[in-house]
């Protein structure tokens, strides 16, 4: 069995967390390689959400890659669409399309657009890229579940930069009104936007209090979104929480895994030069090997 199959089938929680960690480490290497090869794309926000998206697709979500349009599937909206390379990498290895396609990222005629496009890429539930849309669309998807009496879940991942958009708060307010069952927002709070830190560009703290004040069911703990044990713990906490809509705030590190890129806004979307790539690669390989050793 490969790592993907092992992660999907493992029932022991401790082992599963380690398998998912190793998988995320491998995805992160692959993302960096493609972004370097293509000299375009967004590293920082892909890396920060790598564990989270891996955990969603290899542990949490009820999906069938052979039937991406399945009516009863759980939905995922990557509202921070610039992390597209992360979503593509996870979807490919989850079986939605051939990983060989990943190398065509952002090419002319490729099914892998610069930002996710649901009309072109199997498994993408909503096209994103322009920020601020995700929660609104998620409200609509979750309300559709209510109307159709379905029990699928709708997960929306936003970055804290995505929450600068006024529409996000229109959506947050409306979700508190309609209380759609199954709507969960996951905040990838990596604290760094394109132009600088979020504290400099647009302070968002206290984020949990804001969601609370808007009437959401906020998980009481802020989780480490780069730590698989904590992510799985947050999923358990979501299952225990009863009222809708729900939100989990994850503290993450932008550019996670490459020491000199971590927390730097310059690595939001800059092309990865050869020198930086050569320095970064061994760091990610080391982390992957360490994670693999845990599951041997």
């Amino acid at each position, binding site marked *: 069995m490969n790592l993907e199959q092992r992660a999907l089938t493992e029932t022991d929680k401790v082992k599963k967390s380690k398998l998912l960690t190793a998988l995320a480490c491998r995805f992160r290497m692959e993302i960096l390689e493609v972004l370097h090869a293509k000299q375009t794309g967004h590293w920082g926000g892909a890396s920060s959400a790598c564990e989270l998206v891996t955990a969603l697709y290899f542990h949490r979500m009820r999906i069938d890659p052979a039937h991406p349009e399945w009516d009863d599937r759980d939905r995922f909206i990557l509202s921070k669409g610039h992390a597209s390379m992360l979503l593509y990498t996870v979807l490919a290895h989850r079986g939605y399309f051939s990983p060989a396609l990943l190398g065509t990222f952002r090419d002319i005629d490729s099914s892998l657009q610069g930002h996710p496009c649901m009309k072109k890429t199997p498994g993408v539930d909503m*096209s994103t890229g322009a920020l601020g849309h995700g929660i*609104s669309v998620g*409200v609509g998807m*979750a*309300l*559709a579940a209510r109307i*159709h009496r379905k029990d699928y879940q709708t997960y929306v991942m936003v970055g804290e930069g995505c929450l600068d958009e006024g*529409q996000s708060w*229109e959506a947050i307010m*409306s979700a508190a009104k309609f209380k759609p069952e199954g709507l969960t927002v996951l905040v990838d709070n990596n604290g760094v936007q394109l132009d600088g830190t979020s504290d400099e560009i647009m302070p968002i703290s206290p984020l949990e209090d804001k969601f609370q004040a808007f009437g959401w069911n906020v998980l009481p703990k802020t989780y480490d979104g780069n730590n698989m044990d904590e992510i799985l713990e947050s999923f358990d906490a979501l299952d225990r929480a009863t009222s809708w809509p729900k939100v989990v705030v994850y503290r993450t590190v932008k550019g996670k895994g490459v020491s000199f890129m971590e927390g730097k806004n310059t690595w939001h979307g800059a092309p990865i030069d050869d020198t930086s790539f050569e320095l970064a690669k061994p760091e990610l390989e080391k982390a992957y090997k360490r994670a693999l050793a845990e599951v041997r």
Partner: protein
Amino acid sequence: MGETMRDSYGKYLAQLGAVRNDIVVLDADVSSSTKSIYFAKAFPDRFFNVGVAEANLADIAGGLATAGLRPVVNAFAIFLALKSTDQIRNVLAYNELPVVLVGAYGGLSDSFDGASHQSLADIAIMRAIPGLEVLVPADADEMKRALDYALDRNGPTYLRLTRNEAPNLSEKFGERSAGLDIRKIRVLRQGSDVTIAATGMCVAMAGRAAESLASQGISAEVLDVTSIKPLDIDSLAISVAKTGHLVTAEEHSVIGGLGSACAEALAERGLPFSMRRVGVADCFTESGPYDRLLAKYGISAEAIARQAASLA
């Protein structure tokens, strides 16, 4: 007084709701004005009032549409076009989602509320979005057919309505044939000297203009253009090839609406023709009674007739 178009619309939407359970209706705190309130009262479980938040309004509709529902979005035309442009383009149109966008209070019809509420650029904006079709009905019958069409389309449609009493074209021009595609131009009156292509409330004005032109010995052909996008270029070209002259008439800025669409299409056909556009010049409008406001800003049967006579 006949029924206002918004009342006819609201009642018809509620009627459709009874036979189609895939219709969901959304409004941005103006359901009493748009008249989506009839549907809201009849089907509260399929109605969502999202408050004064047009961006959120359009995107929630997008989410509902991904799951097979047929959302009908209601807001004032100007706010739908200006405050949810990104959502209409990037979520609804880009993903070819079957959402009907109903712009209430189109043109100058929210006359007393003034320039802030008058929608004179919505057609231009909507027309520039790929995959979005733009329909402007001229009476209640066209509104119903346009809504039927939009609800069965696999993509987003902008339906621009007027606040006020709509003329009844059937009385003067006969019933629209049931088989006529809403996207096709309807020739309301045959003529040989000048073509008048009109949309929305200007269609009835064009009919009156043609009568007055006839008394001056000018034979005007009147085209009822419900669909500005796609534009029925063939029918338009046949008429203009015959008359050599075109007057367009719309309750919209002369920039980017029906006049622009016709000019672009006919110029590419290489037809020799002269043209005048009746519409609001590139300026801001103001408050006032609807008819007087239309007239002040150059939209009337008289203005249409004057322009046509200057060409013919």
